[in-house]
């Protein structure tokens, strides 16, 4: 029996249309638009001005605070302006516009393909390098990696857990990366282990990627302490709490950080970025993006520079089909539907999913029949139908008592509901209100300075 997490879960149609499509480098765009806020935490502050010449890898915006990340230029050329640009939600956010001229990289970056196995840096230097290179979690949450690699005082890391499950349907960027960069990823994992001083690491891969499991298992034999854990295909296994439960059979208590179980979780793409940063001195300015959809002519995996217009990726995959009803940044379960395709690739963009108009429409909802399917699939042990009801009626005390704050917004409840009820929509609303009240309460209780 393959392992998986122990509570709830669903198995949506996998639709991995772009599986086994080689990672293609995308042609350089004429202009890139690099947003200053591509991560969780404070947006970075621009350190270049209009007219400045930059190279590939030049620092263009500096982290502002501990939970923030540096941003580097993904192209060489001239800063055209610092202005606002629409992010994936359509909100205008500050961004740096760079006109592309040639492809000249910073000399400090080692551009050779040679695998560098030996890790010379010590723990402190590794975390410093990860911070300098602007590495963030590439699974989609984009939490600055150096923060995760600095466990808070009083907690101790015991194991690195690598998220290579890619449980979202359609997405294949992590899968393809493992097939093409297995050794680099494994060295990256060793670097992460050294960064937090642990001897063990486990890489969780869902069993629908048998070729990656086989390849990684063969290669992992050369890397002491790293084990590959094939996992039963089950959504939302890529959720941090679910992955820890699946791989090491420990559950993060409500409200605690994953480090409470001794685990530090990093995405497989992040491990690769860490390898490049530490061994090749290469900042994070490009990533693998899956462009996919049933109606798309050529579902593909592209290596794309940060700031590349999404339209260019869609064109390269065969162009936007006529009957497109929805364009999603990310996967179909947790991705964000975008108001237009005018946005650009950012560090956290794992995929672009095109849906036909028929698929994109929700069906009409009917009354709850209390079938309890949402209760059975909830990976956090909540009662989604009840939480929707109290959220709808603005009963915040009841929502808090029933732990709406534990919701990880995976969408399993809405996915499974036979009455097509928009459970997660309302639960998000209730969760937002309850979290606001909880924060206000904590602030009031804190000692005044």
């Amino acid at each position, binding site marked *: 029996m393959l392992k998986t997490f122990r509570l709830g879960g669903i198995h949506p149609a996998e639709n991995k249309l772009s599986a086994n499509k080689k990672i293609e480098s995308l042609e350089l765009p004429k202009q890139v638009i690099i947003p200053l806020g591509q991560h969780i935490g404070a947006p970075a502050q621009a350190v270049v001005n209009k007219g400045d010449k930059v190279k590939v890898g030049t620092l263009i915006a500096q982290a502002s605070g501990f939970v923030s990340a540096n941003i580097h230029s993904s192209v060489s050329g001239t800063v055209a302006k610092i202005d606002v640009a629409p992010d994936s939600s359509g909100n205008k956010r500050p961004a740096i516009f760079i006109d592309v001229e040639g492809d000249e990289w910073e000399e400090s970056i080692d551009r050779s393909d040679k695998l560098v196995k030996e890790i010379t840096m010590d723990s402190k230097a590794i975390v410093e390098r990860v911070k300098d290179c602007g590495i963030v979690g590439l699974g989609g949450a984009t939490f600055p990696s150096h923060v995760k690699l600095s466990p808070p005082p009083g907690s101790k890391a015991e194991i690195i857990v690598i998220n290579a499950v890619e449980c979202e349907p359609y997405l294949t960027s992590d899968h393809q990366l493992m097939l093409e960069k297995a050794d680099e990823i494994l060295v990256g994992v060793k670097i992460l282990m050294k960064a937090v001083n642990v001897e063990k690491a486990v890489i969780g891969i869902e069993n629908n990627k048998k070729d990656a499991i086989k390849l990684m298992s063969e290669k992992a034999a050369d890397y002491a302490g790293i084990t590959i854990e094939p996992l039963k295909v089950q959504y939302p296994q890529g959720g941090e709490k679910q992955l820890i439960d699946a791989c090491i059979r420990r559950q993060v208590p409500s409200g605690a950080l994953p480090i409470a179980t001794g685990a530090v979780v990093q995405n497989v793409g992040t491990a690769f970025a860490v390898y490049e940063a530490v061994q090749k001195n290469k900042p994070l300015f490009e990533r693998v993006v899956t462009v996919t959809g049933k109606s798309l002519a050529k579902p593909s995996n592209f290596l794309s520079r940060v700031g590349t217009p999404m339209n260019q990726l869609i064109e390269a995959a065969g162009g936007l089909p006529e009957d497109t009803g929805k364009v999603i940044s990310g996967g179909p379960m947790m*991705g964000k539907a975008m108001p237009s395709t005018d946005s650009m690739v950012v560090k956290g963009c794992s995929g672009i999913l095109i849906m036909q108009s028929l698929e994109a429409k929700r069906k009409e909802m009917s009354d*709850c029949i*209390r079938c309890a399917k949402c209760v059975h699939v909830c990976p956090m042990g909540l*009662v989604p139908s009840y939480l929707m009801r109290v959220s709808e009626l603005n009963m915040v005390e009841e929502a808090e008592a029933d732990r709406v704050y534990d919701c990880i917004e995976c969408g399993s409840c809405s996915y499974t509901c036979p009455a097509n009820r928009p459970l997660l929509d309302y639960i998000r609303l209730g969760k937002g209100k309850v979290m606001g009240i909880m924060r206000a309460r904590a602030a009031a209780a804190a000692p005044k300075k």
Partner: protein
Amino acid sequence: MSKKLNVSLSPHVHSGHTVGGAMYGVIIALIPALLASFFFFGLGAVVVTLASILSCVAFEYLIQKFIMKKEPTICDGSAILTGLLLAFNVPSNLPIWIIVIGALFAIGVAKLSFGGLGNNIFNPALAARVFLLLSFPVQMTSWPVPGQLTAIGSDAVTGATPLQLMKAGMPQDFSTMDLLFGQIGGSLGEVSAIALLIGFAYMLFKKIVTWHIPVSIFGAVVVMSLICGVNPVEQLFAGGMMLGAIYMATDYVSSPMTPRGMIIYGIAIGALTVIIRTLGAYPEGMSFAILIMNAFTPLINAYVKPKRFGEVVK
């Protein structure tokens, strides 16, 4: 680029589950028992089943259309299912006019007056059965002897059911095999335990219901029978036990929503049934036990929460 895109919140895909799908799933699961009832009770069973289903669907349509003034929902299969289950809960020689009254009570009173599918407190088919039992005790308890294939209505020769015999302490002329396959007197759909169990297996396979409610009922019946000094096998296979535990107690709307709640609910139904059967005035207690626990369902839902993530034992 002026294309209008849909920007709803995630998730962007749906399982394709529908309310109708679940209802028709239960109906499919009831087909073996339906065929068994035709085999044992013949034409009488066919007539009662058709009358019950047709009148339930008709009442749902008429009440929704002309009294509630809303779009009728007869296509979701729930009225058909209520009709089928009502027929399963009455003797095959019941006069048609009584069935029609039962259907009106099930759909009009037990279901629609509470707000329709999803809002009813009691299982409509069971509420109607108990209503008929109290209103027409003679017709509702004269059980045709199986094997009279062409008898309709009052033509049928009647006899006692196994539970009546047990209750009266009379000599029992049936074997466990008869109980299992259905060669016994009783309500139309309850007699063949094996056909009902086949349907249960189908529903488990299709994930229409979970094991929690039926299995905890069966467990409680066995334990309670041993305490009360009656034969647990007979208690399990006689009367409406199988039909009630598998199809009536698991009704989505009127049963609890959490696994722990379902187990509490199931144990209470099993124990109450045996108590009513051995100590009460009626030979059969399944319907009463389920209806009593239906009334406790909101309370169970309010106090029994699922196991939360982080408290699973290591």
